[in-house]
């Protein structure tokens, strides 16, 4: 899934990879691939993650990982960092999700009564990145579908998700709802449709595998 998601990144893009799963995406990019990775705590041009013994105590990403710079990196404050996000300079963000609605609504910050640590920078990433891609398991630990007609949890942003990568499929969010684009090896359209709590359109022709 992360290898496939890495192919979403086009040359020249400014990209923010959310905390957790999405950061693994970067391992699939070539060493000379022209891209600028942004982290909201104040760095453009993120370099490789470092082990503690090689780390700079003042150089982390938003997930707290010790990262490094590349030639051409820049540091800036939190206001400038989100100015970049809100004013449309962020071409792509990859986020995790609790739920994605067929309208593109995203819920990934709060489970009332159980999990409410605050949204951090997630709302602005979801609402303002030019393209929002979600990386998630297709269903939660209890087998409940994460792709739904509507979010049951408090939303992070509405009508924001463009595409969802799961362990089962690549699915676009369109005006007409979820549309299947690719299938994981060994997974059928019926499998995905059954694990999705909303209509899933199947384009004509063969569905590519990833």
């Amino acid at each position, binding site marked *: 899934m992360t290898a496939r998601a890495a192919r979403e990144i086009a040359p020249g893009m400014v990209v923010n990879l959310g905390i957790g799963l999405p950061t693994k995406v970067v391992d699939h990019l070539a060493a000379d691939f022209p891209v600028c990775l942004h982290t909201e705590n104040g760095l453009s041009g993120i370099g490789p993650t470092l082990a503690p013994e090689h780390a*700079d*105590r003042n150089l982390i990403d938003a997930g*707290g990982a010790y990262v490094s710079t590349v030639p051409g990196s820049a540091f800036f404050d*939190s206001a400038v960092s989100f100015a970049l996000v809100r004013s449309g300079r962020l071409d792509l963000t990859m986020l995790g999700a609790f739920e994605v609605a067929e309208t593109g609504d995203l819920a990934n910050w709060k489970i009332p009564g159980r999990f409410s*640590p605050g949204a*951090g*920078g997630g709302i*602005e990433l979801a609402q*303002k990145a030019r393209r929002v891609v979600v990386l998630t398991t297709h269903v939660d630990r209890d087998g409940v579908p994460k792709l739904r007609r509507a979010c049951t949890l408090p*939303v992070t942003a509405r009508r924001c998700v463009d595409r969802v990568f799961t362990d089962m499929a690549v699915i676009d969010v369109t005006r007409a709802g979820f549309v299947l684009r690719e299938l994981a090896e060994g997974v059928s359209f019926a499998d995905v449709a059954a694990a999705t709590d909303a209509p899933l359109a199947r384009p004509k022709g063969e569905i590519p595998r990833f």
Partner: protein
Amino acid sequence: MRLPDKTSTMSEAVAHITDGATVMLGGFGVPGTPFSLIRELVRQGQTGLTIIKNDANEKGMGVDHLLANGQVARLITTHIGLNPRAVAMMNAGEIEVEFCAQGILAERVRAGGAGLAGIVTDIAMETELANGKMRIEVKGAAGMVETALTADVALIHAARADVFGNLGYDATARNFNPLMAMAAGRVIAEAETVLPLGGLEPDAVHTPGPFVDHVVAMAGISEEYEIVRR
């Protein structure tokens, strides 16, 4: 003319904080958190504080000491998920927590520092964070007024300072520090290195000296500032 000297001791500087004060704390996680100034605030014990900080640090670090010591009444923040004590105290009603989208917290603090009353944004308008906030239309688009934040005191961590209060930050330790250094009635900066006048190049200053009231030399880099091994 020469520029005034604003160096101070840690205890004298922090003693300006009163019970019930609103205090901004720089930092995003470990980098940029003024751990030494926070330690002194814990030692002095002022209570009923409103703390404005991106996060609540982790267990045994920074804000957590203030929480453990019962000094915090209210927290304005973006994410406290790494501090179980903060979450527990919030759930038990022992502290009041106001959440803000991270970039909007940055802008509200900056607006306070820029002498503005507020900003108009559409961020988080469709979430519960919008509850109770004024809505207005600007150029035909729906927006929400986010009020400026100011504080009685800001505690700032800098890598470098000169005696006039010009500050320089290292790497991602910058984060909220330059914004908060504009937004408080009294700004106290701890610095790893305090230089004489002329020690910082004018083009390389991140926070200009006129914003800063007190410059405090740190005793050293304590354990809290170091790499966190998880």
